[in-house]
């Protein structure tokens, strides 16, 4: 057990170092997020009422797209330089190592994304209850996006037209998360309780933590053989 935990931390810290040495990977999704959010008011004009109604939704959708964008590269360099082969052959469960990779990825892209999302929500003057609900749904939802997305990324890694296939594969799977998150924000703005939506999201998170890495590891093995 102890050695398994050690293997997890080795991959986790290795990936943290790798991404921190390659700043573009860290900054690109955030820049994408800010630019897209900044475009919305141009498209919809200065109607404050309308903007207030759609702000939470556009923040969530943009966060979802930014997360998909950054997720695309999570296994690419490992696949191209042969590190994936060595991970498969390391004698540790691939599920565990994949889980380490996904968690490192979420810590470096998901967390900053949540912070930026909060900031933009604040600047676009979301009411406090909505902002709170947005924070909670992003906190529960973005790890699910990473865990589910990783399965599809593992399936398409190394394919030439992988990007297109990837969005076709994962965006439908993201829909429940988006729907329940938006419901939560809407209810919170109306002063209603949001427990049900949060429990659903938490349930999805538990489900994807338990099953996601297993499926991702299996997909990687298929890609290698």
């Amino acid at each position, binding site marked *: 057990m102890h050695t398994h935990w050690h*293997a997890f931390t080795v991959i986790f810290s290795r990936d943290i170092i790798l991404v921190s040495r390659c700043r573009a990977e860290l900054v690109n999704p955030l820049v994408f997020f800010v630019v897209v959010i900044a475009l919305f008011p141009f498209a919809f004009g200065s109607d404050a009422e309308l903007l207030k109604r759609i702000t939470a939704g556009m923040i969530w959708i943009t966060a979802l797209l930014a997360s998909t964008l950054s997720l695309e590269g999570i296994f690419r360099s490992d696949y191209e330089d042969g*590190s994936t082969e060595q991970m498969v052959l390391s004698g*540790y469960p691939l599920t565990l190592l994949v889980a380490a990779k996904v968690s490192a990825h979420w810590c470096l892209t998901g967390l900053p994304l949540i912070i930026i999302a909060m900031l933009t929500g604040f600047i676009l003057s979301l009411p406090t209850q909505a902002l709170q609900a947005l924070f909670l749904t992003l906190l529960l939802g973005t790890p699910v996006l990473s865990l589910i997305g990783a399965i599809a990324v593992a399936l398409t890694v190394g394919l030439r037209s992988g990007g297109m296939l990837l969005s076709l594969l994962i965006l439908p799977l993201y829909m429940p998360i988006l729907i329940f998150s938006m419901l939560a924000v809407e209810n919170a703005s109306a002063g209603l309780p949001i427990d049900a939506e949060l429990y659903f999201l938490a349930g999805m998170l538990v489900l994807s933590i338990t099953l996601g890495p297993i499926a991702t590891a299996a997909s990687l093995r298929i890609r290698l053989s």
Partner: protein
Amino acid sequence: MNILNKNQQGNPDLDQAAPFFEVRMLECIRQDVILFQDVHFELQAGELLQIDGVNGSGKSSLLRILAGLMQANSGNVCWQGQKISKCRYEYQRQISYIGHLNGVKNTLTALENLQAMGALAGSKSDITLSDALIQLELTGMDDIPLNRMSAGQKRRIALARLLVTKSKVWLLDEPFTSLDASGKSVIERLIVEHCDRGGITIFATHQPMEIEGCAIRHIHLGKK
């Protein structure tokens, strides 16, 4: 498939032991073309096997099957009498596979790469990482990221896996690619030492090989 036993070692101590490594009737089909059929061989502790054959004859595929990365279309690979699919993790802790991809990270330094290799290895050797670098003639390159090294130096870092792990089976796919003469002789020395310790080495290369102090068995893939 013909197996040529060139001066096979007659080690009397090992003759009665069960074969360490056994391959039976292996067949591999890629894109509806039979790459190889009926490949079979047995290896005892301390033996060295070269897989040769022309380009595209399935050397790499055979090594990937032996490592358990790929499934053969039929046939078995057995390790100490057990199919490797039945004892995957125990088997993988006993092997070091170095494919034509180096499996090292370009943005990490030499030392960081070795640390990650050692930490993920099933069985670690007691050599220190800087000793491993010295043995591979990379003294003083500890803190240099790999993207500032030459192809040959990167290959040496990849081959350092053999030093920082203590595997019984080495599976090497074209190990000498981009190595210079001295790099080649370092690796040859490592292979001889490994065989003396009772380890098995299976390597694929299409070049004729002679290693001093070690008899090489051959298996030929493809048409003669």
